[in-house]
């Protein structure tokens, strides 16, 4: 039972991070490695504030805004300085390692016995007696659902529409008269805000911050997104964000089972990596992506291609010409 609860707790905490990764990886098509730095940043903010007896809920808000700033930095490096997406993330991830150690003051900071969002006077009064073991899972459930619904709401606004459009087809954003770089920065900012908040909550649940928390976070996030999306893609009434949350819980369950089966917990990163590889192979996410790209070009209509030669007399342009003419501006 306690294993089940801890899977639910950690799965839902990581789900908030997964929602952030969903924004960058699926919506923006931006493999953002900043996540490996912003997650422990949230944890170190939690540890630094809570060890000084500050309000644990305030730590959640502070980490959310700190994450938003981190995302803006990654975005500016990528958009304004034209650094490639992966490199922009690597630069931020490396720089953040120093930032989160500096924030907490040391590489490892426990916060046992301090008030957290899961363990304070109010929570203990509400969840007393037999309910006590469920306090954490209920609180996490509320926060995760709140994050999920807020993200759902945002993606249905005009600003959210542009975020979805920029990953889908950048040209449309330019055609609509908006700066696509700005929208990418907004997306990265929201994503990293969620990730950092998730790190903050994780530290409060685990009651410590450790500098080694970071590496592998993005893999967990990607795994959650890919499991969620490939398992539930057929179920149309289910929101994608819900799929990500469930994907995250399932992923944590798999890791927990591997540990339960006798693997030492020091092997955690290896389990994380192999599990992710297995998921990638099973879902064949990469291959599908390539096929769908071809379909875009074809307009999803096989006939179009077949009829082209017959119409060439009318002056339809073969694809090669476009390359010849389009080649010059690119060079």
């Amino acid at each position, binding site marked *: 039972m306690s294993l089940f609860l801890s899977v639910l707790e950690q799965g839902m905490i990581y789900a908030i991070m997964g929602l952030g990764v969903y924004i960058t990886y699926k919506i923006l098509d931006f493999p953002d490695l900043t996540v490996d730095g912003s997650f422990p940043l949230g944890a170190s903010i939690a540890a630094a504030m809570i060890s000084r007896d500050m309000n644990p809920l305030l730590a959640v808000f502070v980490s959310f805004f700190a994450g938003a700033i981190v995302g803006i930095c990654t975005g500016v490096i990528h958009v304004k300085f034209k650094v490639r997406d992966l490199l922009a993330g690597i630069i931020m991830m490396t720089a953040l390692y120093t930032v989160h150690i500096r924030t907490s003051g040391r590489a490892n900071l426990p916060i046992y016995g301090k008030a957290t969002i899961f363990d304070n006077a109010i929570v203990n009064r509400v969840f007393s007696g037999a309910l006590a073991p469920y306090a954490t899972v209920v609180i996490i459930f509320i926060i995760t659902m709140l994050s999920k619904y807020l993200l759902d709401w*945002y993606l*249905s*606004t*005009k*600003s*959210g*529409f*542009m975020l*979805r*459009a920029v990953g*889908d*087809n950048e*040209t*449309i*954003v*330019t*055609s*609509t*008269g*908006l*700066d*696509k770089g700005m929208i990418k920065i907004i997306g990265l900012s929201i994503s990293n805000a969620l990730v950092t908040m998730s790190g903050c909550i994780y530290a409060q649940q685990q009651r410590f911050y450790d500098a080694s928390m970071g590496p592998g976070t993005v893999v967990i996030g990607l795994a959650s997104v890919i499991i969620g999306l490939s398992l539930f893609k057929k179920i149309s009434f289910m929101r994608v964000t819900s799929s990500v949350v469930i994907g995250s819980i399932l992923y944590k369950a798999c890791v927990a089972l591997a540990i339960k089966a006798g693997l030492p917990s020091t092997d955690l990163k290896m389990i994380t990596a192999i599990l992710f590889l297995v998921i990638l192979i099973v879902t064949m996410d990469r291959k599908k992506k390539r096929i*769908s790209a071809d*379909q*875009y*070009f*074809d*307009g*999803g*209509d096989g*006939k*179009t291609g077949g*009829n*082209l030669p*017959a*119409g060439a007399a*009318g*002056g*339809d*342009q073969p694809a090669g*010409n*476009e390359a*010849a*003419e*389009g080649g*010059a*501006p690119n*060079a």
Partner: protein
Amino acid sequence: MLELKHIDKTYNAGTVNEHELFHDFNLSIGEGEFVSVVGSNGSGKTSMLNVICGSIDIEKGSVLINGTDITNQKDFQRHRRIGRVFQDPAKGTCPSMNIVENLSIADNKGRRFGLSRGINRQRIDFYRETLAALGLGLENKMDIPVGSLSGGQRQALALIMATLTPIEFLILDEHTAALDPKTAELIMELTDRIVKEKKITTIMVTHNLRYAVSYGSRMLMMHQGNIILDKSGEEKEKLQVDDILNLFNEISIEVGN
């Protein structure tokens, strides 16, 4: 009124592949004109559109819209008054979003993209009527992702989206070239209808000489970065496909092809 004044554009400047496309290039397009542009590959048709839209930088010269100099404006700023339809139907729409969402984005062009609801429900009936007028059955597919539509359907949607809000210029960059002949015909008729209805100043680059001759109020032929033929009014009316073909052949002989 659109003016290109003394435009210089050199590709790969400072390398062995240096190629000066435009030297002191001038063009002026009046209010309400529908200009079709033909020319061989590399003649500078697409480059001209890119100069107008700000998609490529120029070394010298200026671009003016109704007297305002927009040379220093970024591409996305210029697009607030320009609508553009590309050769690739995938470029004009968002594949993972449905028709209503796509139209909502286009409908909000020029306004703020804030935190209000993305879809304006009061506009849905208007969208449905607009789509029904196309006769492609799109009005019954309003909530399916645009990525699953055919190329022709997408191009029709792209054209509707580009002209949904009041724009000063419509730029058509070989927008029928990737379509089968029947669909191309349909899109071309739709284009003509929209341009006439909304009285939009239009520039259409095409490789289809028949379209260039039968549509539009003015025709340009480009060659090596120069305009070698510019007919409008009655002269344009009299033009035949064969006249242009002959001119094409003359040019080819000159170049030695």
